């Protein structure tokens, strides 16, 4: 079903080599200390990974979402945080490419493709996570600029990145709150008066990567940075971007689970108990077979959603299904593979405990799985309406 082209295969082979040679050997220098992997990010710029899905006419590689998903799987199999460096950047680029004005595409996409402008997504607020429509951040038109005020939290790539797509309310009196929101392209290459990265949030996993609380105090953003040039479209733009985000998060879950499985099946053939390698105990075989089956199923869901997206079809259902299944699968599989490693899986001498700590983010981020189920059910009720 997913026969890859020579070009796709070669790109994946290179990403795999990059992960093997330049990520895996150094994870332990960053992850345990929550240190930002700047040298890896610099190499990702050189390799052109920040421009993966940005159209070629704007300096990117213009790749399809199937390749995109498989690249995220590969990077996450090495270290999930590295996929996070690209994740919200790629969503921001997607929103600009899909909904930006021609002028915005020319101004921002080429610099995003090189990684000179490294983006992120600023939606979540202390009082509004799942309930995005409840955001309080305001953007008020003042001459040729908008003045932004508000607090955003859990914003990945906001300390080390140089740009954000910021969702703010432009019309607090809109009949439907979602129609009163707009998305802004915000750059902070240099210090911007009123913009502050307040604190780094310390996390169970997804370490090494900057996830921060940020505030906007009378921050002036040029009016030409309003995505699409029209107010009131922001919620729609961002939700469409999250479709792509769900594909990438689901692909990450596949990558992390695959890494756990591969470590475990290798270990199981070496570790001997009761006179034979534990891989020969049926209890272990059951775990390995179940893990593999679930990983394969999840990958197919991811690629199915990605391929459908590439055909230009609506994929909120497929992306939600893939995200829900893959992330729950990843949570189960990482724990099961830890069982295979016994006590050793619980120690920092092996990578399993890291996979296990990284897995829950895919369950919570990019729309919690409870929210996925709501989205899925709503779509199903639409589809099967009597």
């Amino acid at each position, binding site marked *: 079903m997913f026969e890859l082209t020579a070009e796709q295969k*070669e790109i994946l082979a290179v990403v795999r080599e990059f992960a093997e*040679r330049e990520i895996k050997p150094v994870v332990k220098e960053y992850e345990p200390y929550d240190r930002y992997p700047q040298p890896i990010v610099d190499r990702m710029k050189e*390799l*052109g990974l920040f421009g993966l899905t940005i159209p070629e006419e704007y300096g990117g*590689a213009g790749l399809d979402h199937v390749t995109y998903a498989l690249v995220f799987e590969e990077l996450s199999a090495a270290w999930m945080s590295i996929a996070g460096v690209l994740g919200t950047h790629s969503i921001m680029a997607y929103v600009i490419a899909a909904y930006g004005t021609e002028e915005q595409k020319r101004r921002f996409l080429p610099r995003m493709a090189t990684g000179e402008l490294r983006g992120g997504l600023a939606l979540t607020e202390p009082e509004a996570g799942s309930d995005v429509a409840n955001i309080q951040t305001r953007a008020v038109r003042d001459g040729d600029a908008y003045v932004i005020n508000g607090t955003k939290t859990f914003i990945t790539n906001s300390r080390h990145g140089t740009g954000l797509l910021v969702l703010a309310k432009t019309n607090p009196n809109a009949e439907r709150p979602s129609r009163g929101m707009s998305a802004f392209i915000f750059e902070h290459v240099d210090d911007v008066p009123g913009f502050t990265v307040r604190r780094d949030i310390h996390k169970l996993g997804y370490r090494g990567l900057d996830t921060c609380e940020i505030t906007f105090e009378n921050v002036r953003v040029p009016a030409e940075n309003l995505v699409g040039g029209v107010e009131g479209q922001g919620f729609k733009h961002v939700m469409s971007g999250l479709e792509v985000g769900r594909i990438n998060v689901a692909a990450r879950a596949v990558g992390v689970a695959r890494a756990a499985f591969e470590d475990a099946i290798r270990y199981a053939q070496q570790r001997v108990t009761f006179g034979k390698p534990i891989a020969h105990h049926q209890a272990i075989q059951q775990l390995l077979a179940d893990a593999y089956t679930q990983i394969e199923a999840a990958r197919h869901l991811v690629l199915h959603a990605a391929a459908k997206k590439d055909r230009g079809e609506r994929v909120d259902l497929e992306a939600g299904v893939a995200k829900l299944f893959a992330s729950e699968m990843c949570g189960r599989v990482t724990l099961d593979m830890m069982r295979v490693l016994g006590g050793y899986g619980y120690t920092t001498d092996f990578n399993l405990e890291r996979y296990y700590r990284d897995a829950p983010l895919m369950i919570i981020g990019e729309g919690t799985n409870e929210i996925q189920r709501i989205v899925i059910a709503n779509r199903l009720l639409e589809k099967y309406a009597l």
Partner: protein
Amino acid sequence: MHIAVCIKQILDPEISPRAFKIDPVRKAADPGTASLVIGPFDLNALEVAIQLKERHGGQVTALTLGSDKAKEALRRALAMGADQAVLIDETQVSAKEPSVTARVLAAAIRKLDPVDLVLTGRQSGEWDFGQVGALLAEELGMPFVPFVPRLDVAGNGLRLEREADGGVVVVEAPRPCVASVTNANDNVPRLPKVKDIMMANRKPITVYGPGELGLGAAEVGDEANRLEVLDLFIPEVKSECEFIEGEDGAEKGANLARKLVERKVI
């Protein structure tokens, strides 16, 4: 500066020994599910060539004698920074020995714009003959420098380092010449950029058959091969474990020494 680099596509040498099988009839490795890669030293040669081009300008041509699949290897070379790629179709070629390979490559190199330097890997990475470079130099009537980790332009010629037992020999050679490249810290093959991979897929690959190179059966047919592979097999590695008896360390040591002498290890 025009640099020709000869590369060979081989079965990935990193596959697990268990996955490695030999086809006893063809007396060749069974490709199985192993992926195909460029020989590791050939990649070092490509890297050396591209670095030289980056320093002094010029162009790099990658050549390979192989099947249609070997285009993948050429595309990787293009993505890394080679400017042209030439495939010599192996279907009409019987290259069981390095001299035939060298003859074919030499004929293809003569068809290119004049070269200043020809690079090969130090050895192929599967058969490990390590002869193509030298034989190629002979065919082309050029000087040959083996085991070169790095080189640079020096006046009208080249200055090359050659690895020797316990040291390095620095030599100068005129242009054109042939060198075989060995691995070093500063010629680790680069990973191509995503966009360069895409551009490489859009570049043309020149394909020659032996006829277009003026080579007939006498030069590249079965009769051109004097080497015959009689048998090809995976050696069986047996290991035994023997405990050395003894009352104490001294006695065990003496017993161990006696065993080693008996087996002519020491």
